[in-house]
């Protein structure tokens, strides 16, 4: 064995240029697989993270049925008791209390149906990205009574700018028409069209007056440190709320709040698999081609080896060794390069601004995607490439092993 392994190693370096080209081709395939795997994993994570951090939170607590009905009668009557439990949630990063209801915003003859969100400005800024999404004017503050921030799309629709005032009306809890005049303090843009075209944020104190809610709230949204810890946090909340006999509440995680996002993630995973299959197939044929050509070009050499008494199985072994060694070199280079590229794409992110229009459909807050390398993805790519390299050598190796010396010597 030793002889043929050494021979294989020498053969590789005898045709230095060819070896380098073949290894580069294989390494390139590996880099592609590592990178795309990391890219789509990163895309999915930032997609969830975006939506969660823009407005949703990982977990929301409401009165039973509120998520579906959005009925003003379904409020959390004792938010303090619920917050006492929420603040002890494991892995809690931030929480925010909100009043939420539909209404109409209008000025003169122009009007638009909106989702009204009464928030505690500091809490909301900690739990969500809304403060960072301000494009004009200022975000809400604790004393910003009588002012609102609205989405860019809504501002364009109603043709209002910072400093203008808007009328908001809604059905209040006491069955009166809740109404008020509010000054536009700022304009935000989240790239979520439902928010940008249809949401108004105001101080929770204003919302309590508007909806005649006193100290009631509609929603408590929680953010945990990592989306993997959502089930644990949710279980804790359900158990603790039940213990305190607050069973009229519903605890929903982001997959229940926005099931279409869960579907989107599943779709992206299928997309990833298809894309990987295509890349692997392309890499497979690339590697097959390089190895086949390099062996067919050496048929005369194999013929002479056979004429000197080398057995077919030895030639077969030699070729498999060669391509395995080639694969290993490519693996070392490709893994290093792939890791480097992916880490760079992780730190700097990839600006997909040229797809920005299409991205709005995904509701990305920014157009930058941070690739995320996982150990699984990395090992998967290595295994795929080394297996492919060895597998594609089998056919040319058999062909070379079976060659008749005389024919081979005359081969070229």
């Amino acid at each position: 064995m030793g002889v043929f392994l050494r021979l294989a190693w020498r053969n590789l370096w005898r045709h230095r240029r060819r070896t380098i080209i073949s290894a580069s081709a294989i390494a390139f395939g590996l880099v592609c697989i590592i990178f795309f795997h990391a890219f789509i994993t990163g895309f999915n994570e930032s997609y969830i993270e975006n939506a969660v951090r823009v407005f949703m939170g990982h977990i929301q607590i409401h009165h039973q049925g509120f998520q579906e009905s959005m009925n003003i009668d379904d409020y959390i009557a004792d938010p303090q008791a619920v917050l006492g439990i929420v603040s002890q949630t494991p892995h809690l990063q931030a929480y925010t209390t909100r009043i939420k209801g539909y209404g109409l915003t209008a000025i003169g003859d122009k009007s638009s149906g909106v989702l009204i969100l009464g928030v505690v400005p500091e809490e909301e800024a900690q739990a969500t990205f809304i403060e960072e999404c301000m494009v004009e004017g200022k975000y809400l503050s604790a004393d910003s009574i009588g002012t609102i921030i609205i989405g860019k799309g809504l501002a364009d629709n109603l043709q209002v700018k910072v400093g203008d005032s808007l009328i908001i009306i809604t059905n209040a809890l006491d069955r009166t028409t809740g109404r008020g005049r509010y000054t536009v303090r700022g304009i935000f843009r989240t790239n979520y069209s439902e928010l940008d075209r249809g949401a108004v944020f105001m101080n929770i104190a204003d919302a309590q007056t508007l909806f005649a809610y006193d100290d009631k709230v509609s929603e408590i949204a929680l953010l945990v440190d990592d989306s993997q810890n959502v089930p644990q946090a949710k279980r804790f909340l359900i158990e603790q709320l039940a213990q305190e006999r607050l069973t009229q509440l519903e605890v929903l995680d982001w997959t229940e709040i926005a099931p279409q996002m869960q579907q989107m993630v599943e779709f992206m995973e299928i997309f990833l698999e298809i894309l990987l299959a295509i890349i692997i197939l392309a890499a497979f044929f690339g590697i097959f081609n390089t190895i086949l050509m390099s062996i067919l070009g050496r048929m005369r050499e194999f013929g002479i080896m056979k004429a000197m008494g080398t057995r077919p199985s030895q030639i077969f072994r030699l070729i498999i060794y060669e391509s395995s060694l080639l694969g290993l070199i490519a693996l070392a280079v490709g893994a290093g390069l792939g890791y480097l590229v992916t880490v760079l794409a992780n730190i700097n992110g990839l600006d997909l601004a040229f797809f920005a229009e299409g991205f709005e459909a995904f509701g990305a807050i920014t157009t930058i995607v941070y690739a995320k390398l996982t150990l699984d993805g990395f090992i998967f790519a290595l295994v795929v490439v080394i297996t492919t390299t060895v597998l594609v050598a089998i056919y040319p190796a058999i062909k070379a092993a079976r060659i008749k010396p005389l024919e081979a010597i005359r081969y070229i």
Partner: protein
Amino acid sequence: MKLAIASFIIIFFTITGFSFPTFAIDPKTVVTEMDELLRGDSNYMLITMEVISPQFDRSVKMESWSLGKTKSFVRILSPPKDEGMGYLKLKNNLWMYMPDVEETIKIPPSMMLEPFMGSDFTYDDIIKESSMPDDYYIDWAGLGSYSVSGYDCYALELTPKPDADVVWGKMRCWVRKSDYMPIYWEYYDEDDYLVRIMEFSEFKYIGDRTIPAKWKMENREEEGHITTIYIDKAQFNISPDESIFTQQNLEDY
């Protein structure tokens, strides 16, 4: 042959005569008469609306004027929180004035079917300009006489015309035979579920005619939600001043 034709005609009329015993009156006439009774060409009303729901009870007093099929005006008199709010409807446009924010806004058509001031009536029900025969195809719901609340009634089925701005999938109305008085209405949604029931009672001579002074609307979609309208005062065919139906008047409170 002649005999055959003659007997065929006789048999045909006998059969059809038996299977379709018609009233001497057209169903559309019944609804038109009922609509006229409640509205007149023009009217003024002083109304108290009582809203009962498991969470809140409230009472709203309002005045309304309407002229023809295109103009309607409502002013809220109480409770104090809503006093002075006004609604003006001209053709398909509805404006709402809020004295506390000193602003008139135009209410989009989509909101016309929202609950009016937390009641079980929609904006459209309260501030309506079009008449039932304009919005609905009208047919008998059944033939013969129906006894509802002790009155001898016609039963009618109203299905909305394709272009009518109507939220209901269907309505059924029981109308007193003697004077086209509305007695009992049922409102169905698009899936044919019974969602609202209106009962008319306390028939009184108000203005120049006898009308039901109490209209009780029961919401079948939300348990315990009942809205009752009491007509405290009414005048019909009064030819109200056109200046009532202006934005100037709306904002003058």
